[in-house]
């Protein structure tokens, strides 16, 4: 709270603008700080301070009782050199992201292209496809846990109709991640809708000009639709990536990370370390590493995106 006050109070005006600054103007500034304070206080109290505290705790050994014991870098060293579960949970999360993100991009974009056609009934399909994506959480996880049931689940029944033998979705550390991908793709309507909005934002003059030039459907897609929606694709990609690192509820409910740690997502590992084993210092180090991974991967995606994202009028995806 004191830190917050230190920032909300306007700093003394700088010399060059100070002389001209009237009382009215200062009053207006103060008003601005008061109005923005819900965010500012929340930012300090629930984001910045906990973030810094978490960072500091990462260098300690602590089970929540007494005072944290400073251990320097040893948590991080242990994480990277002597913790197979850390690597396993990273691997699980990375494989999931590598399977899910491209599939969701292709399916979501394909559906958006289909629904962008001026045909009757598209509103109906849009609503239908979007519906599963708004549902999440425990109940949906419980439902999918049963859908994937090897002997009595509806998915294996459907596969059986086309002659595929039952797949042990949740009983094999190989199949469990594909199962999670399928479950997550049920909500592909969410990214479909974002892509659809992006596609509909492309100025129609571009297509008119292309039609006069006799451009084919494929070249219109390749040279107009994709470049013009590339900021939306980037936005979805980054958000999807961040979301992947936070997958928790489904794994907690359906598999508890199993079988044989095959679905031990990073967030689940962090939760277990902090709130089951009460290794708060070690878990904080994991949180720091998570933050660094997200920051680095996002930065890499943004950097890579410079080769394919096209900003018409330089308007970025983040406003």
């Amino acid at each position, binding site marked *: 709270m004191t830190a917050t006050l230190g920032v909300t109070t306007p700093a003394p005006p700088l010399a060059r603008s100070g002389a001209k600054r009237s009382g009215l103007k200062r009053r*207006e500034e*103060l*008003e*601005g700080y008061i*109005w*923005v304070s*819900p*965010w*500012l206080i*929340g*930012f300090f*109290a*629930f*984001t910045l301070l*906990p*973030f810094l505290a*978490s960072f500091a705790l990462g260098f300690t050994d602590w089970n929540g009782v007494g005072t944290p014991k400073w251990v320097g870098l040893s948590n991080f060293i242990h994480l990277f050199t002597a913790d197979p579960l850390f690597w396993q949970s990273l691997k699980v999360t990375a494989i999931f992201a590598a399977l899910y993100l491209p599939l969701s991009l292709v399916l979501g974009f394909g*559906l958006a292209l289909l629904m962008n*056609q001026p*045909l009757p*009934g598209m509103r109906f399909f*849009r609503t*239908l*496809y*979007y519906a*599963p994506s*708004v549902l999440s*959480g*425990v*109940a*949906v996880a*419980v*439902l999918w846990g049963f*859908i994937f049931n090897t002997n*009595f689940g*509806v998915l294996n*029944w459907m596969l059986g109709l086309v002659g595929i033998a039952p797949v042990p979705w949740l009983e094999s550390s190989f199949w469990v991640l594909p199962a999670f991908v399928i479950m997550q793709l049920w909500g592909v*309507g969410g990214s479909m*809708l974002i892509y659809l*909005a992006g596609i509909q*934002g492309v100025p129609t003059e571009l297509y008119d000009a292309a039609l006069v030039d006799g451009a084919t459907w494929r070249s219109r897609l390749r040279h107009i639709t994709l470049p013009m929606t590339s900021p*939306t694709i980037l*936005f979805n990609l980054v958000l999807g990536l*961040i979301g992947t*690192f*936070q997958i*928790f*509820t489904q794994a*907690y*409910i359906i598999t508890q990370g199993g079988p044989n740690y095959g679905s031990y997502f990073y*967030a689940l590992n*962090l939760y277990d370390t*902090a*709130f089951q084993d009460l290794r*708060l210092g070690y*878990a904080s180090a994991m949180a720091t590493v998570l933050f660094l991974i997200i*920051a680095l991967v*996002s930065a890499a995606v943004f950097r890579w995106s410079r080769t394919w994202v096209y900003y018409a009028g330089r308007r970025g995806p*983040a*406003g």
Partner: protein
Amino acid sequence: MTSVVEAPERAAGERRARRLNGRGIARQARASRRLRTKRREAVTRAVVTYVLLIAGGVILLIPFAWLVSTSLKPPTEVYAFPIVWIPHPAMWDNYVQVFQQSPFARYLLNTAIITSIGVIASLTGSSIAAYAFARMEFRGKRVMFAVMLATLMVPIWTVLIPTYIFFEKIGWLNTYLPILVPAFFATPFNTFLMRQFFLTIPLELEESARVDGASRWYTFVRIILPLARPALLIISIFAFFYYWNEFLLPLLYIQSQDLLPVSVGVSNFVASQQVNFPLEMAASAIAIAPPLILFFVFQRWFIQGIVVSGVKG
């Protein structure tokens, strides 16, 4: 002489006319052929589109059908093969059992309390802060806005442990305060969405009110907020879903049975059932029904919300 001269000219003229005419006919034929292929292509494309969308739609609906069907099955039909889609007899009693075997009504009430306060909280803080970002001038505004957008990318896991310890120290464990109090302080996504919306409201409306001596607060409450109803509705809907589904925070902070929300309640119920699929599905169906109904009532707003936040975001 004249005829000699005229004849070839006439012949040439006729030839030209014939040629032109022929070309015209050919062009017409080509054009109509092209039109026909174009129309045929359009029809083919429409048919392919509908086939794909219907097939995909059926696949998307199967989990819902499976949920409802299983929730009504007598135990004998759960393991039947081939699958019995229409339970016979339909066991409505499964739903009654859910309420009898666990305090499910209590869970629903708790979730309703958390969700309604959460929705109000999400609206208040965000719209006030968003108004400052959209309409007021103060030093550091641009930096703050950039910082706010950056915090969109900060995962909850990086702040969870210290906040948990903090809330434990001040004695907020086993209350809704750790879930609801932070909600009153503008969350980045909602603030961003509100600000984008405020920017589309013409300035003149406020200026005339301000000239007439109205205070900031009065203009905000009486002019801006009514105009921003669509954005407020969108945030309410998103917040409803968020708080309805919230699982991690109540899992961490709530211990007493009679304070648990539906999310943790379903999780506990399933764990206590030891594989009774019809009851598990009935519990899930009860938990999914309110958001699903809300979605279909407000689906237009949902889709607009995505458009506002997705395109401009």
